[in-house]
């Protein structure tokens, strides 16, 4: 009954390990999920470990157990109706006299399902070591048989209002990995960025040296301390603050990096407009210039983060006199400068506030810049990938989990 649900979770980007599955069945045996609300809480505790997966989990749960939002009439799927477990339960109940024929027609669907679930949960507890849920064809009540499985459908006024209501509010959507960077999820972005600084312990008693020195002193104790070096990473942020398109992002970016200042002592900001032509500016008004060939003298281990929308007239990037500043005497095309930067600083990434889906539509320069620097967008998963890239020295692109491609309800209806 639950295996298709686990598979669905995997399809929507949640890492599911066999360990969790076993733990879940153990919890079922102990009777920790007597009603749907507790089942929801238990599943979430065991399977979801990161904040950005919460929303996907809730939607999957709603779609699988409570029916998709497109359905408006409560109905049970045929498989469920005809499944052995449900029928057996019906027979038992009728035999016991708890459920008469009249009841069966009169009782609302929710009540039936609630009763059924209570009994089923108890049964799971009683069968120690002999799982009747897993793999035994036909016993699972919820239509478990490969492609046909739909889960219990009884939506709208659902079996347990509280669980559905909570899910409908979608409390966690702001934290999902594909949400754009805003003040709410800045904290999460920060958590990802702080991985960039490895730190080591500070002072340590060097016992061996102490013992050696003390023995040489004829027994007079001489304590020797050593200090381990901390790795200091230098990060430089080059920010495109020209043009109306970037204005809305400046505040958020500044907020993120302002918080980082506590962690990273060596964080420098420079500014440019659209593209880099021979110099970068150390003030937001772009008056104080720092020539690029001086900038290129920095340590090649410096991490470089360029933030901009990479959206400019192709001429600016490719023509030798394409610099946006009319009076500029620079005769090297913008692309050249970017290449020089990339060659000097292999650990560099470009972060683009425009979301990934729109890159192809916005401008061809985005793709051109994307060929020079690895480009990610300013969502949580984009920043994570960018940080992974910076940490691994630019040698491998790490995929941070499969990204969901279809909305969850649609994918369920496709199965039917």
């Amino acid at each position, binding site marked *: 009954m639950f295996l298709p649900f686990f598979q669905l979770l995997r399809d929507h980007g949640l890492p599911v390990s066999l360990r969790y599955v076993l*733990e879940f069945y*153990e*919890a079922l045996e*102990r009777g*920790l999920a007597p009603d749907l609300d507790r089942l929801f809480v238990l599943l979430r505790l*065991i399977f979801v*470990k990161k904040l950005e997966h919460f929303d996907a989990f809730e939607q999957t749960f709603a779609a699988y157990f409570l029916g998709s939002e497109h359905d408006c009439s409560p109905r049970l799927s045929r498989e469920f109706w005809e499944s052995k477990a449900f029928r057996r339960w019906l027979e038992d109940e009728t035999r016991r006299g708890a459920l008469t024929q009249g009841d069966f027609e009169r009782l609302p669907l929710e009540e039936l399902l609630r009763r059924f679930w209570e009994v089923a949960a108890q049964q799971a507890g009683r069968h120690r070591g002999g799982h009747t849920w897993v793999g035994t064809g036909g016993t699972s009540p919820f239509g478990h048989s490969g492609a046909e499985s739909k889960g219990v459908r009884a939506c709208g006024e659902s079996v347990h209002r509280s669980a559905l209501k909570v899910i409908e509010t979608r409390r966690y959507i702001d934290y999902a990995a594909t949400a754009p960077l805003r003040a709410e999820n800045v904290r999460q972005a920060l*958590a990802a960025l702080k991985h960039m600084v490895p730190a080591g312990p500070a002072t340590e008693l060097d*016992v061996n040296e102490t013992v050696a020195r003390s023995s040489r002193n004829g027994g007079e104790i001489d304590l020797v301390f050593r200090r381990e070096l901390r790795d200091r990473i230098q990060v430089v942020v080059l920010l495109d603050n020209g043009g109306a398109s970037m204005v809305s992002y400046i505040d958020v970016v500044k*907020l993120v990096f302002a918080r980082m200042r506590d962690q990273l002592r060596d964080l420098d900001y420079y500014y440019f407009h659209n593209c880099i032509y021979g110099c970068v500016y150390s003030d937001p008004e772009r008056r104080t210039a720092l020539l690029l060939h001086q900038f290129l003298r920095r340590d090649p281990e410096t991490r470089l983060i360029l933030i901009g929308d990479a959206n400019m007239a192709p001429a600016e990037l490719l023509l030798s006199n394409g610099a946006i500043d009319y009076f500029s005497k620079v005769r090297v095309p913008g692309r050249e400068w970017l290449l020089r930067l990339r060659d000097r600083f292999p650990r560099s990434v470009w972060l683009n506030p425009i979301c990934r889906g729109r890159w192809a539509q916005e401008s061809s320069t985005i793709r051109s810049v994307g060929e020079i620097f690895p480009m990610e967008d300013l969502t949580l998963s984009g920043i994570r990938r960018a940080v992974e890239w910076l940490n691994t020295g630019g040698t491998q692109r790490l995929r941070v989990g499969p990204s969901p491609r279809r909305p969850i309800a649609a994918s369920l209806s496709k199965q039917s």
Partner: protein
Amino acid sequence: MQFFGTDRYYLNSELRDIVNIAIAMERPLLITGEAGTGKTQLAFEIARALGLDLEEARCKSTFKGEELCYVYDTVLRLNDSRFSTGDSGRDVNNIWDYLRFGPIGRAFQAERLCVLLLDEIDKTDSDTQDNLLDVLEDGSFIIREINHKLKARQRPITIITSNAKRELSDPFLRRCYCHHIPFPTMEEMTQIVRLHYPQLPAPLLDAALPTFYRLRQMGFEKPPATGELLDWLGALQLDGAARPAERGRILHLGTLLKRTQDLLKYKGREARDS
């Protein structure tokens, strides 16, 4: 063993179920959330409600995993070997006299079940967290110097809190149950305030809460949290104020907004609106 909340701590039903499941399955519970949402308080209240001892470990960035378990005092032993006169009661030849146990070590050695709190674990390095992995999994750690494995007599109820300042490593997350406490809604906040200030007049509270939530939406660098709200209400109550704002200016703003930038930003907005 079930936990149902106490008179001093507001517990919503979801969190109650989660705590009880974690206790039943004997798994550590990792709680994340904004500052002031009652994460640390939860552990204290569990200990109080169930009548158990609490071992607390306030994690600092210099902590190594071993320190939380035990510390071997080499300097003292060196000193005793040279200068000891024997009346300190410690035997230089016996290493057990020089092993001091940290919170995890003490929790594992306790006779009765106890609650173990690892506060703000995200302040430590990921190395420390990796070192704690098998401690959490098995309930045992090895004393390196004598190669002795110390196993927990009873697995303590472990609560780990994190401010989500730094990301926790995946293997660490896999071994815990994770729960994120969202910021309380207005109804929940009302109940929380009522627990702390039962005598607060209702009109004041009804006026103050929307103001508070509005302030949170304004995008300050450090938005006010539950702790600040309680301080502010306390100040208003002491002051005997009937309303939270006079002529458009919020009283006792300093208890809500702590950063200079935020205060200036707010004053600027106030000046613009008035």
